[in-house]
């Protein structure tokens, strides 16, 4: 796909009119000469034959003609060019400049119109592709979710004994199937999120909220999983309350959940996860999630935030994970005007740090479509 788009546009480039300059019948240079002649020599020539009183009038007339001509020849087309470029800069692709002066300005305008038109076609094509991709993913997700719901409901009803009594062994067995199904549902959700992020349409609702409450809620939702793996969780809320932070609480919760899930998945039973929240300088709040897990090999660190990345050492652990979690986290934090970074030592543990600004003005004004993260490839 990418190949064909590329070759098409390079084909267009070859057909680009190279000889536009040849059409200049009245180059600027010639026009300037004419103005100079009118402005300088002509009055002088006439002045020698006419009374002195008339001379002033003639001078005024000559200056007026000079100004009029330079406006017509230079300033007006320049303004038209400027206007066109401004339109293009504002995103009005396909904007046209009409100059019929048959000089360098009209050539400039012709070239500009070519570029503008090409840009319009390219951008429309890109939009169409992105729209198609989005529609495809939405449709696929919906199509996937329907049978996944059916599997979920059937297994749950069987486990609950709604369709007859089961032995504990049968229930445990079904529970494994249920859990696997939950993982696919999670993956579908992640895929939908990623598709939205890449389009710049993840959709954020910024409101002032209490970050400590958000952390507590997220931790509470994971309590069962902490217990299952016998992981000790430490979160000591700061003694002094933070000011309310402008954020999308649901998205921050999703980010925290993704980070915590990594910590839970890659921390062996009996380990520990510690969460801290404290101010970093005057403008930012820093949240730190530190685990005693398996860590990330040094060589793999640069690729941490790229899509579908999964560290080699954890692939061997056969734990769940789509490789989309941190990609989503990074985008959420960036959208909030924060930073995220990770420290890790293999075999000892991983610490995820992220910041969120206290001040509203540090939050980007709008969500932008983000290019894929391909760092490290």
């Amino acid at each position, binding site marked *: 796909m990418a190949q064909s788009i590329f070759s098409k546009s390079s084909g267009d480039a070859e057909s680009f009119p190279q000889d536009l300059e040849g059409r200049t019948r009245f180059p600027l240079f010639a026009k300037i000469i004419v103005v100079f002649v009118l402005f300088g020599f002509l009055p002088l020539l006439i002045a020698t034959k006419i009374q002195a009183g008339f001379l002033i009038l003639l001078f005024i007339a000559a200056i007026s003609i000079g100004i009029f001509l330079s406006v017509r020849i230079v300033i007006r087309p320049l303004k038209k060019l400027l206007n066109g470029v401004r339109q293009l800069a504002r995103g009005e692709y396909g904007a046209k400049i009409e100059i019929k002066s048959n000089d360098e300005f009209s050539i400039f305008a012709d070239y500009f119109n070519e570029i503008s038109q090409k840009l319009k076609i390219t951008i429309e094509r890109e939009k169409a592709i992105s729209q198609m991709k989005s529609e495809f993913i939405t449709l696929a997700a*919906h199509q996937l979710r329907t049978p996944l719901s059916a599997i979920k*409901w059937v297994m749950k009803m069987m486990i609950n004994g709604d369709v007859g009594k089961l032995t504990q062994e049968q229930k445990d067995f079904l529970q494994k199937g249920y859990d696997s199904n939950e993982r696919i549902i999670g993956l579908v959700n992640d895929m939908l999120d990623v598709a939205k992020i890449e389009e710049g349409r993840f*959709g954020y609702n910024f409101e002032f909220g209490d970050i400590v409450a958000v952390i507590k809620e997220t931790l509470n939702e994971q309590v069962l999983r902490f217990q299952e793996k016998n992981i000790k969780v430490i979160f000591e809320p700061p003694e002094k309350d933070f000011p309310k932070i402008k954020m999308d609480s649901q998205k921050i919760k999703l980010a925290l959940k993704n980070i915590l899930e990594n910590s839970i998945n890659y921390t062996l039973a009996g380990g520990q996860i510690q969460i801290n929240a404290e101010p970093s300088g005057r403008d930012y709040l820093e949240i730190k999630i530190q685990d005693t897990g398996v860590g990330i090999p040094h060589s793999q660190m640069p690729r941490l935030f790229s899509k579908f990345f999964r560290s080699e050492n954890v692939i061997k652990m056969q734990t769940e994970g789509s490789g989309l979690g941190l990609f989503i986290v990074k985008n959420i934090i960036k959208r909030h005007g924060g930073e995220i970074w990770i420290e890790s030592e293999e075999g000892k543990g991983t610490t995820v740090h992220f910041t969120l600004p206290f001040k509203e003005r540090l939050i980007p004004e709008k969500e932008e479509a983000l290019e894929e993260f391909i760092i490290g490839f």
Partner: protein
Amino acid sequence: MINVLVVEDDKFLRELISQKLIKDGFNVHGAIDGEEGLKMVKEFNPSIILLDLILPGMDGFEVLSRIKNDPSIASIPVIVLSNLGQKEDVERGLKLGAVDYLIKAHFTPGEIIEKVRSILK
């Protein structure tokens, strides 16, 4: 007995949720598309409606807006039960007057019935 109307085009899902509802003591009517759903709302005057969004013919959004624009049935709570889960869909559903919006893949039948009970309280 409490009347519940389930508007769901997928036969298997409709049967599953109906079965669970019946087992929990509800009286269930099932409709396979929007038109039938609207007809049954008027016919059975259910206490609550579970409404799918992607339906053949008239979609769930249209059904919802017709219910909410008809004073004789507008007061019946409608829970959207769909697998459309994007922000725009959820917002549109709630704006049209749905009392809750549940994504099928995120709720078990038991949890859905809990929601039904909590809304009817």
